[in-house]
């Protein structure tokens, strides 16, 4: 028996196989590949979405960082400003105090001057009085003539006692 024998089996097989191809293509491969494509798109979408979200998060992170840096800078500025202000204020206070002291000092000096002048005036008055007294005593001593020495002694003593300062 020859195993290589062609007959109508050949066209029958062609037709059978084509039917198989058609049926499988229509009912199996098409839906199956559709599903696979759908899954592929689903995964692709998910990946893209994840990528977008990652980028968004990165953007927000950078934004926050920027904001933080700004805030820090601002705080630094405020602190510097405050330090400057306080320094200035301190200087002002100091100057004021100095001015005040100066004023007080001037007033005190004026007072002293005034007191001194008054004292001098007083002294002058006393000196005048004393002079008059001395003159008086001298006159009296001259009149008595005797005891001139005692008179001088007394005069000097009196002058020494009545000196105001």
């Amino acid at each position, binding site marked *: 028996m020859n195993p290589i024998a062609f*007959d109508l*089996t050949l066209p029958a097989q062609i037709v*059978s196989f084509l039917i198989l191809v058609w049926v*499988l293509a229509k*009912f199996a491969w*098409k*839906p*199956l590949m559709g*599903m696979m494509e*759908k899954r592929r798109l689903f995964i692709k979408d998910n990946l893209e979405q994840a990528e977008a979200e990652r980028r968004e998060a990165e953007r927000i992170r950078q934004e926050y960082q920027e904001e933080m840096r700004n805030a820090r800078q601002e705080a630094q500025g405020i602190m510097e400003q405050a330090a400057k202000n306080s320094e200035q204020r301190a200087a002002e206070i100091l100057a004021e105090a100095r001015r005040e002291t100066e004023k007080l000092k001037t007033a005190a000096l004026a007072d002293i001057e005034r007191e001194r002048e008054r004292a001098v005036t007083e002294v002058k008055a006393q000196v005048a009085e004393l002079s008059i007294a001395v003159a008086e005593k001298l006159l009296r001593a001259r009149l008595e003539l005797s005891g001139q020495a005692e008179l001088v002694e007394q005069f000097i003593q009196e002058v020494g006692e009545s000196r105001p300062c």
Partner: protein
Amino acid sequence: MHETILWQVGDLGTIHGKTLVMTWLAFIVIFILVFLGTRRLTSGTPGKMQNFLEWIVDFVRNIIRDNMEYTKGAGLHAYLLTLILFVFVSNMLGLIPNIFWPLFEHVEFAKLDEIFHGAALMSPTADINTTASLALLTLVLIIAYGIKYHGPGYFRHFVEPYPVFLPIHLIDMVAKPMTLAFRLFGNIFAGEVLISVILMLPGVGILGGVIPMAVWLGFSIFIGAIQSFVITVLSTAYIAQAIGSDEH
């Protein structure tokens, strides 16, 4: 080895009944496989059978990608998928013991009692008519894709670079499907012959044939898988040649 059971079709000629019945049996097996795989189609987590089918789909897609631009060969995908599945299931069919024998023992309709007679089923691919029909379809696809992508200019390559080469190109054109057909047929047919031979070993009914049978069945599974892969890859490569005959 199987006896050829002939169906007479009027005055037209004869059909190898056993081959045709086994082909349909292979179809049924494929339908069951595919039905199980596509029963609960989902784009989410696929079931085991869907996963298996998707693996085959990807496998064949990669075969196409290896040979040509996928966009050009996308139309071949369904055909090649069916081809690899059919050839594989057919090759395996000859290794399955004849479990249907009790069913058709006394059915004389269409000589079914003779068809399901013997120790094992038969591979449809162990018949040259089956493999030749597959090879012829490949030939048709080769020419169809050649014309599709090159128009009538496709036939010019038969006389290139010189008209003297025409006979060589013609031989090439005939040899491609012929080798396809005979390679598959020879491998599977020889496998079945050897199964018959092993079954004829003396004392096979007791234990003598078990070890060689097991070894040979294992090898046949390997051969069957390899051959289904080979015919698919070669068909793709031949068609890719026709598509890209300008570039190559």
